[in-house]
């Protein structure tokens, strides 16, 4: 397959869309030339922002990535030193490093990318591959998942995709992840969303139990957790309906800023439920418009 068959992509560019154009990437010192890509597996560092960051330089055991001084330099890839082993993929906090092997098979490329969601896909699973904009591009198959301690909980997923998509595919679609239910769910979903053993924070659930009332319904809660957490644990995603268009709103920023999650608590409207802890006996109501 010749270089002409490898698909390129279009975007409005970093400044307007946050997605680099092919030209912008070609200018990045971490992005390999097309003939190197056609030769075999190689790291693809899609780092376009000059920020003080250099874990990738440290991660490469072959010294193929150079940032040097100042630390804001874009990482430069030594195409000859790079073997495409992918050790650098999980080191990038911006999830901007991939490996692409355009020689994986006669008509397939192998694309490896960092993956930080739960649940992780399974090896052998058929997936839908997505591009930088998150749009579905083609079908793929999970070939390998690296999750060793040195990956520090950022998995490296490798998928095979049609070769022509090798420079476009950068992730997979998660549409088939567990569906979330809306307001009015039945009581058996009370433990539906609770994470009892968090992969980073550890086991959850040793706090004292309290009870609150939500729209007349009694719900169990953990003393001290945020109201919106309790509601999500009970499968309640809608906190209020807006004043003008009566649209449902729920958790958005989660840091007490956006006021999407406000509800009427103990008769007082516009209480930010993401930063207000539950108390035993609290009365919480879905707020309609401005409340009373």
């Amino acid at each position, binding site marked *: 397959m010749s270089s002409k068959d490898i698909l390129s992509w279009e975007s409005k560019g970093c400044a307007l869309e946050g997605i680099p154009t092919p030209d912008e990437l070609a200018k990045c010192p971490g992005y390999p030339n097309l003939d190197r890509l056609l030769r075999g597996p190689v790291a693809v560092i899609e780092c376009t922002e000059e920020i003080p960051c250099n874990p990738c330089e440290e991660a490469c055991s072959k010294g193929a990535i150079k940032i040097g001084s100042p630390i804001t330099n874009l990482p430069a890839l030594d195409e000859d030193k790079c073997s495409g082993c992918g050790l650098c993929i999980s080191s990038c906090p911006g999830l901007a490093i991939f490996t692409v092997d355009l020689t994986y098979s006669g008509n397939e490329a192998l694309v490896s990318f960092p993956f930080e969601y739960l649940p992780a896909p399974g090896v052998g699973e058929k997936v839908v591959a997505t591009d930088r904009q998150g749009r579905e591009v083609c079908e793929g198959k999970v070939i390998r998942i690296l999750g060793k301690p040195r990956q520090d909980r950022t998995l490296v997923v490798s998928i095979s995709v049609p070769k022509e998509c090798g420079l476009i595919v950068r992730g997979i679609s998660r549409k088939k992840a567990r569906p979330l239910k809306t307001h009015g769910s039945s009581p058996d979903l009370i433990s539906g969303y609770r994470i009892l053993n968090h992969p980073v924070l550890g086991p959850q659930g040793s706090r004292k139990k309290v009870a609150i009332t939500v729209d007349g319904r009694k719900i169990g809660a953990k003393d001290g957790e945020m109201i919106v957490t309790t509601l999500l644990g009970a499968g309640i995603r809608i906190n209020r309906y807006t004043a003008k268009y009566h649209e449902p709103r729920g958790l958005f920023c989660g840091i007490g800023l956006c006021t999407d999650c406000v509800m009427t608590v103990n008769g007082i409207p516009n209480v930010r439920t993401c930063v207000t802890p539950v108390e035993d006996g609290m009365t919480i109501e879905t707020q309609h418009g*401005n*409340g009373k």
Partner: protein
Amino acid sequence: MGRERNLSKSADVVVIGAGVIGCSIAYYLAKLGIRVTVLERRERICSGASGANGGGVPLSLTSPDSPTLGLRKPSIKIYQTLSEEIDCDFEYEKTGVITCAIDDAQYSLLRKHREGMTRKGIEVQLIDGDEARRQEPALGPDIIAGLEDKETGTLNPFKLTFGFARAAKRLGAEFLFCAEPKAIEMKNNKVESVVTDEDRIKADFVVNAAGAWAPVIGKMVGLTIPIQPNKGQTLVTEPVALNKRWRYVMDADYLARGASAPPDAQDIDVRLGITGGWIQEKTGNWTLGTSHEINFDAAATIDTVSRMAKRAIRFLPGLKNVKCIRMFAGFRPHCYADDLPIISKVDNLSGFIIAAGHLGGGITFAPLTGILVSELITGKETSMPIEALAFSRFDHITEGAKQ
């Protein structure tokens, strides 16, 4: 962001200040085909008091003997059709207002005020406290009586000012921002041009509509204009359910104290000029006012704001658990000689017109001021008597007009 320096611009009239007064004047002048250039010191329209008020258009909230009382009914009449005329809906609404008394002293104020208003042919109704509460449950239990004025209204001051500006622009007026006048050139006791950092604009007339900054402009032509900043602070709340009957509520103390703020008063509320004026917008937000402080410090101050909050709760206890989401302040242009605006020509200074000092009546009198100034400029007899607003009423002499 610089423009080319232009030393040979000209206009028929230069208006200094793009607040509601300046924009209104620009509109009424442009309407007559007069070429207007508006110079604004800051980067936007309504950067002064015009952008920091509650939008009240009251009829009867002034002393019965005030010379401006007779200007209010005509102003309100203009407002009935102004929206359509300038092609901008500035949300004018006759909400009515109720001024409330919480003790006997305030109750006497209400009674006296009603007598005065009736004398002047303005209808206001005295309502017993219980009856007022029946119609408006949000009124507090301390209220013993209320004086209702059905003709008072509110509007959106931003839409009004921008509306005037847009209408003026459509008729050919020019607005220059970041264009602070640095000098006014005169010849033979007549204004000739206004100079900014970037331009010199020749003009036959210069209108000083600079509000609280009018004295600065006055100095450029050797005048001492007795206007000081009268700072009013405001608390804006989150939106809550609308009041049933009255969304514009006043505290009777305003009738006695008005805009005064005597620095030697014992009572701190009197010292800070704190009186209650509370307007709830259609969206449910309350703008809780106000204070009267003589200074140019734009920051919200906790002393004032906390006392304003206290007063608001006294009259509208439901506000206790309502949250304040913003605090700001504006500078009313206050003519400290007699609390009256100045809308007049100046003797021995041809072409210079002052239109400033509207205190709390800027929004109310904006359209009428625009009309009056256009009449002063075209030499017509003014449609309302404004001798009481003449600059000549002050004992100040022009400190030798600059040649």
